């Protein structure tokens, strides 16, 4: 369990005390308003108790008072770094419930937007991770690139963070005439930037020292806790819903699913979890390129129902959001409002394994581990 010997202080005659340190909710590296109660022996972690709920906005209860399309802006506000994908999952669930056939162009647009969103979200994860470890420059480099993706979103739907773009049965606007050109330019510029990020941070000796062999998540523990997404893949399990539970048009594209290999330490350590995201961005670029080349013409709003009134029933739909398996469980009683919308939030599930990862490491490692599992508090608290 432990990398460090706690034995020394226990054996000696010196009287020592455990210290309880409250980290957060106002702390630079808890990525929002998470409070961690750390029990310390010197600098070594004996126990971590995460306290959540500082950002609770009653999404699920709110949803019951809204009509189905009105829920979409609320899904944006859960994982605010991956709003497109939240809408994508919700729209997909509703379409399956109502058995709506979506035009092919819409599916392509959704995939393009979803993958761009994945890159944007991973860029934030990697940038802030660098800042957590103490390198501030990669943070700004990542945000510089993310800015261009946000610009692409902005010319498409007018919003930069909370889009309300993917609707039940379609999308709100067609692509901007410049979109494909700008997207291709971005991909062309982004590949060298990714290489630069690797040189600056990923293969930096100090960075590897700080992250390799830290917070190792064995694959069986990951499965037991229900961890999904990049964190599960970093532990060495090839599990990606885009491939294993196909939705939309993902089956038409050629891409790989990177898994952690323990290149710098043990499989499933912080470095693996970090690097899996870098590699996923490359795969997303491949998907976007193929989609941009083969996108069909068509109308994007034709399948949007005038009145969303699904038949009585229930559905569970899951999509591969940048943080893992995002599931929507929707119960319809045949009225205009959903009877229940339950969200399976990947960050919420991942957060449960966090105390397990931290035990026996140091205070500085808590920050490294927390950054590597890439949580978004808006999604945990909903």
């Amino acid at each position: 369990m432990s990398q460090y010997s706690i034995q020394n202080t226990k054996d000696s005659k010196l009287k020592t005390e455990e210290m309880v340190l409250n980290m957060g909710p106002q702390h630079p590296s808890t990525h929002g308003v998470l409070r961690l109660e750390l029990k310390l022996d010197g600098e070594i972690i004996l126990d971590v108790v995460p306290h959540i709920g500082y950002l609770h906005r009653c999404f699920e209860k709110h949803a019951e008072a809204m009509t189905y399309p009105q829920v979409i802006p609320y899904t944006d506000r859960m994982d605010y770094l991956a709003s497109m994908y939240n809408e994508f999952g919700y729209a997909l669930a509703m379409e399956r419930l109502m058995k709506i056939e979506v035009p092919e162009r819409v599916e392509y647009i959704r995939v393009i937007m979803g993958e761009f969103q994945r890159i944007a979200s991973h860029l934030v994860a990697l940038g802030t991770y660098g800042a957590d470890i103490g390198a501030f420059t990669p943070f700004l480099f990542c945000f510089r690139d993310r800015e261009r993706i946000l610009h692409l979103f902005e010319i498409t739907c007018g919003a930069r963070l909370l889009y309300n773009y993917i609707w039940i049965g379609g999308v709100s606007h067609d692509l901007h005439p410049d979109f494909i050109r700008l997207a291709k330019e971005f991909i062309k510029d982004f590949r060298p930037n990714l290489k630069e990020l690797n040189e600056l941070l990923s293969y930096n000796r100090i960075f590897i020292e700080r992250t390799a062999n830290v917070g190792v998540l064995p694959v069986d523990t990951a499965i037991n806790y229900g961890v999904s997404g990049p964190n599960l893949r970093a532990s060495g399990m090839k599990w990606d819903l885009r491939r294993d539970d196909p939705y939309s048009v993902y089956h038409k594209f050629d891409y790989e699913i990177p898994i952690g290999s323990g290149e710098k330490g043990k499989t499933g350590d912080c470095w693996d979890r970090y690097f899996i995201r870098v590699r996923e961005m490359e795969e997303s670029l491949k998907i976007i390129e193929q989609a941009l080349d083969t996108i069909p013409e068509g109308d994007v709003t034709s399948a949007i129902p005038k009145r969303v009134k699904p038949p009585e029933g229930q559905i569970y739909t899951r999509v591969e959001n940048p943080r893992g398996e995002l599931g929507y469980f929707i119960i319809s009683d045949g009225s205009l409002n959903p009877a229940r919308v339950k969200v399976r939030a990947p960050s919420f599930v991942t957060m449960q394994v966090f105390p397990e990862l931290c035990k026996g490491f140091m205070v500085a490692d808590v920050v490294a581990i927390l950054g590597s599992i890439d949580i978004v508090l808006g999604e945990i608290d909903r």
Partner: protein
Amino acid sequence: MMYDWLNNLTGSPILAMFIVSLLPLFVFILPFALFAVLMERKVSAHMQDRLGPMRTGYHGILQTIADIIKLLQKEDLVPTATDKTLFNFAPLLVFIGSYAAFAAIPFSGFFIGSKIDLGIIFIVGVTGLVVAGILMAGWASNNKYSLLGAMRSAAQIISYEIPTLLIILTIIMITGTLSLYDLSEMQTPYFWNWMILGGPAVGLQKILLIPLMIMGCLIIYTSTLAEVNRTPFDIPEAESELVSGYHTEYSGMKFAMFFLAEYANMFAVSAIVAVLFFGGYQSPFGYLGNLLGLKWLIPIEQFSWFTAKGLFFVFVQMWLRWTLPRFRVDQLMAFCWKYLIPFSFVILLLVGLITLI
């Protein structure tokens, strides 16, 4: 030297002493701190694809002055649960420690606050006061983050003083002097007489010394980085873990004292590296003053050379800070005790043998 001149000029030893002791503060440390803060912001900004402060004055040159004015206006806040005496005394001690070091730094052959024979030992000694100040600040703040930061800082500074001193010792073995003035005078007239290129030694000795001196220079630069808590060794104030470390609870002018001390320290250690290895205030190519026969030009040239060398090393510190991530506390200690100290001992031993040739 400066003191004698002023003593003759004013005829009063007290006045001369007063001027000499305050001169570095007003002529150098304060303007330098103003400049260095702006430099840090600009350097970091341009490394990160930004512009940095642009609004106050031309390209933001007045930004630090605006910051200082803001800090002066702030309420002097002392949290209730602190140990008031220690809390108030700590920033002073830290500042005194780094300010006193400037007394022995030779800015030029003419402008040395105090030309004592034990210059280098004095600097190492007084900068040791900083540790006490940091510990006091961390303890008195009654804040767990501050305490952790202070403990880390004390352990770090004390450990990294060992390689620094070992390298200084090798230099002393070669030159046989502890005075920074004499040391600078030895590394003259041209750059191949700098210590990094073997110093005043000649022939085989010089060739053997060069690789050792380069290694020694790298070691001392690394360990001084750790002593002034700069990245990659900035764990005492590791922002992402400990908020601000030992000065978390400080605000207003007391915070500014820590800040000023940090930048003064940055220059002080750069100056030490410059004096020990890069000829101090000596010009690498001879003096314009000698060429033109204008004797009064030489001190000015020397001062410029010294500042330029110091600023270069300060720039390298900034460069490293905005490039590298941060070590963890145990890795930091391991790096010092497992690598720097053994290497320093080897250098010390080899240089000792070489000087016997």
